[in-house]
């Protein structure tokens, strides 16, 4: 009797829910077919409009470019607020004039002269001059600022003396006149232009910094295409179009960064049209990729990150033998792991340099899946009976536990037993930087210059926490990279880089796993997004516009 009643109520509730969901389904079906009607859409960019995008890595904490390390969570925002001397178009691979309208490099590659544009205004209305750049660069170097970016500016002459307190100003930064800035380096360095294009090398207005003190990072003022408007911590950051921008008013009137770290939260927000665009997390990818609705709303690009299993060459172990490292590279079927475990959201790492960076070499020495060869190499090295390899990892979906579990299956087939140690990301960073590991799954990259990309992780001058955490050393590689950094001939630079990469591949200090496949999904009315390989979150928002007719 009682059960019967409950059952009836249950049935009624279920029926109601089914009817309701059927109704809403048909309405959403209508709206999609309306949206795909391209005859109504604008082809010419229109002004006005608001872009709501997801900030998936959490709150940027501080928007002072000197305070935070250059990286996605902050730079995806600060690059719009601040105006560097030059900007790097990562899609075309060229430097474009920005606050500097032109620049000259001396024949010896030591002296960079930037000619500043006239009439570039900070958001408080004051004109930007060479003096501001001198102040801003010295501010990054000043130990009182505690800037994580200080290290990369030490290539400027006199910077180290300034840091050590031996001089009051950096001798290598000279203000010739308000519109001419001269920077001298300690030695020629091809990566310097890249550094000058980053947000921390942009000018900050001294009077505002001094007035706001620690609050500057909470209410930043720059000279970029967008002005800071408001910030609700851990929730959203709003920028507004800078109508006085020297490059012309941006199409967008407003950009909102919604801070959403949870993938399901973002899915729901996107589905309810609260979000206009978002970068997809690894678990979200298949859902959008396999849905034909999003066919024209997905942008993919191989990002400049190389995921790897690095061996600690400072520690004793079988991996000291190059044949063992090569064997491990032969033993694992990376293509299968990417297809099955990562569901295709990565590109196989054939070499170190991803296809979207200058100097990419598709004919580089590489390792194809070949367990037989792996066994032979292990036998040659005297590890016919195998050994145990301890792998340090996190739960990261693309270069963490799932991948390690998959690769350990392959390694066991050639006799290598794997012991997995899983930690959180902060611990991984700490232990890898301290050299406290045998082998570790990691992601390296983000550098836009091939010399910088290789030097950071394979040059012996960057041993340990500075980048070369595996303590790989090959004098030939060091020499090739040093030469590549100093040459002014680009073809020569690329040839040197490729030689260095080939040598490193032969030494196999890593197991080369994958390059991240960065994916953006956007609503049909968002126009002007690009497959930016440095980081797909670094969109040039001055080119983005909203087609209101498609809404």
């Amino acid at each position, binding site marked *: 009797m*009682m059960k019967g009643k*409950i059952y009836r109520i249950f049935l009624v509730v279920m029926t109601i829910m089914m009817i*309701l969901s059927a109704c*809403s389904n048909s309405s959403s079906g209508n709206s999609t077919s309306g949206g795909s009607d391209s005859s109504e859409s604008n082809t010419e960019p229109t002004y006005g409009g608001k872009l709501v995008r997801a900030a998936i*890595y*959490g*709150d940027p*904490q*501080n928007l*002072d470019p000197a305070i*935070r*390390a*250059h*990286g*996605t*969570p902050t730079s995806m925002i600060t690059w719009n607020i601040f105006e560097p001397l030059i900007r790097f178009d990562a899609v075309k691979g060229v430097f474009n004039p920005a606050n500097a309208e032109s620049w000259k490099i001396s024949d010896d590659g030591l002296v960079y002269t930037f000619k500043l544009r006239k009439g570039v205004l900070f958001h408080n209305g004051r004109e930007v001059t060479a003096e501001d750049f001198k102040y801003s660069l010295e501010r990054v170097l000043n*130990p*009182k600022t*505690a*800037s*994580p970016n*200080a*290290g*990369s500016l*030490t290539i400027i002459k006199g910077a180290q003396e300034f*840091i050590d307190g031996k001089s009051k100003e950096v001798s290598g930064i000279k203000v010739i006149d308000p519109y001419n800035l001269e920077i001298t380096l300690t030695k020629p360095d091809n990566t310097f232009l890249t550094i000058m294009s980053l947000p921390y090398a942009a000018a900050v207005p001294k009077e505002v910094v001094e007035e706001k003190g*620690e609050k500057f*990072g*909470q209410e930043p003022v720059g000279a970029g295409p967008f002005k800071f408007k408001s910030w*609700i*911590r*851990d*929730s*959203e950051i709003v920028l507004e179009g800078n109508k006085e921008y020297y490059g012309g008013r941006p199409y967008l009137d407003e950009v909102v960064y*919604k*801070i*959403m*770290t*949870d993938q*399901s*939260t973002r899915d*729901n*927000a996107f*589905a*309810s049209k*609260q979000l206009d665009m978002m970068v997809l997390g690894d678990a979200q990818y298949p859902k959008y990729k396999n849905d034909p609705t999003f066919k024209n709303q997905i942008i993919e690009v191989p990002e400049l*990150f190389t995921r790897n299993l690095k061996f600690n060459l400072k520690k004793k172990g079988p991996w000291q033998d190059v044949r063992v490292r090569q064997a491990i590279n032969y033993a694992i079927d990376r293509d299968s792991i990417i297809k099955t475990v990562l569901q295709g959201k990565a590109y196989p790492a054939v070499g170190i340099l991803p296809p979207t960076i200058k100097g990419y070499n598709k004919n580089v020495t590489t390792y194809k899946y070949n367990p037989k060869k792996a066994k032979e190499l292990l036998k040659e090295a005297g590890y016919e009976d195998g050994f145990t390899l301890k792998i340090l990892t996190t739960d990261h979906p693309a270069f963490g536990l799932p991948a390690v579990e998959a690769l350990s299956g392959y390694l066991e087939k050639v006799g290598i037993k794997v012991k997995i140690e899983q*930690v*959180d*990301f*902060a*611990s991984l*960073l*700490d232990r890898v*930087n301290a050299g406290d590991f045998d082998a570790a799954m*990691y992601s390296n990259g983000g550098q836009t210059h091939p010399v910088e990309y290789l030097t950071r992780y394979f040059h012996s001058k960057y041993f*340990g*926490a*500075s*980048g070369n955490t595996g303590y790989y050393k090959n004098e030939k590689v060091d020499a090739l990279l040093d030469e590549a950094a100093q040459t002014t001939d680009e073809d020569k630079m690329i040839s040197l880089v490729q030689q260095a990469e080939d040598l490193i591949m032969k030494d196999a200090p890593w197991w080369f796993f994958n390059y991240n496949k960065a994916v953006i999904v956007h609503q049909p009315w968002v126009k002007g997004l690009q497959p930016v390989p440095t980081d797909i979150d670094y969109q040039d928002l001055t080119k983005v516009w909203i087609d209101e007719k498609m809404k």
Partner: protein
Amino acid sequence: MVGYAVQRLLGAIPIWIAITLITFILMNVIPGDPVTQLMDARGGSMDKKVIEQIREEWGLNDPLPLQYLHFIQGFVQGDLGTSYQTRSPVTDLLLERIPVTAQITFLGLIVAIVFGITIGIIGALKRGSWLDSLVSSFSIAGVSLPSFLIGLILMYIFAVKFQLLPASGYASGELKFLILPSITLGLGVCGVIARITRSSMIDILKMDFMTTAYAKGISSWRVVLLHALKNALPPIMTIIGVQMGFLLSGAVITETIFALPGIGRLLVDGILQRDLPTVQGCVVFITSVFLIINLITDIFCRWIDPRIRLDV
């Protein structure tokens, strides 16, 4: 009563010290360096020299006991230090986020109390009926379903399907952003309240004075609300006090799902980024809330039932 409250709060000083000390030790024992956390989590790198300079600047090279003493010194003066990640005073960070957490906890509590007590009373009055079974299964579902699941289901129905409420986010002063999170939070707790209300009410309803009340001809809803519920309240109040803890911890998950800028997320981010001053600030805040709520619950119970004596 005031003297009692002051005494209770003073007695809590050792608790504050113990908890901040434990937090300090734990944060220093776990691996992970706050300075390297400044790097890009996707694969940046920093020069060793720079790392050293920043450690020096932040006083991280001082001996640990000295670092803790510095914290206590500031704490006594109402200064919780400066966050490593934001470089803002921790008190500012807390003040920004307290309203959010306070609002969803408070609204969640109201949802829990209203739903919990109502269905508890229904269960007690209609004991053994199908309504009672329905109510019981509802409260069991509330307790056992994880709040992230409830949250996602609500989000799907109200934001994605019917687009009545925003799926997530926050704007100060706008209630619509807080409705789904509060219900999510409240539903998790209301089951427990409902069960306690039901059993407590059943005990009271059996008592002789209830029969007397009915016999006097008082309308039945007055009997239930004024006579039965009032006497059944003390255990319910106690459980509500205890559940406040659950609400605060539930707020961490709810805030993440609904992208709300509250204390919970501040704490979790602080721990992941090894931002000790922020973590200490949150811990001090949460501890204080616990202590104060326990105190209020005790005082309230005594007000309801004067037989309860307040002992220090």
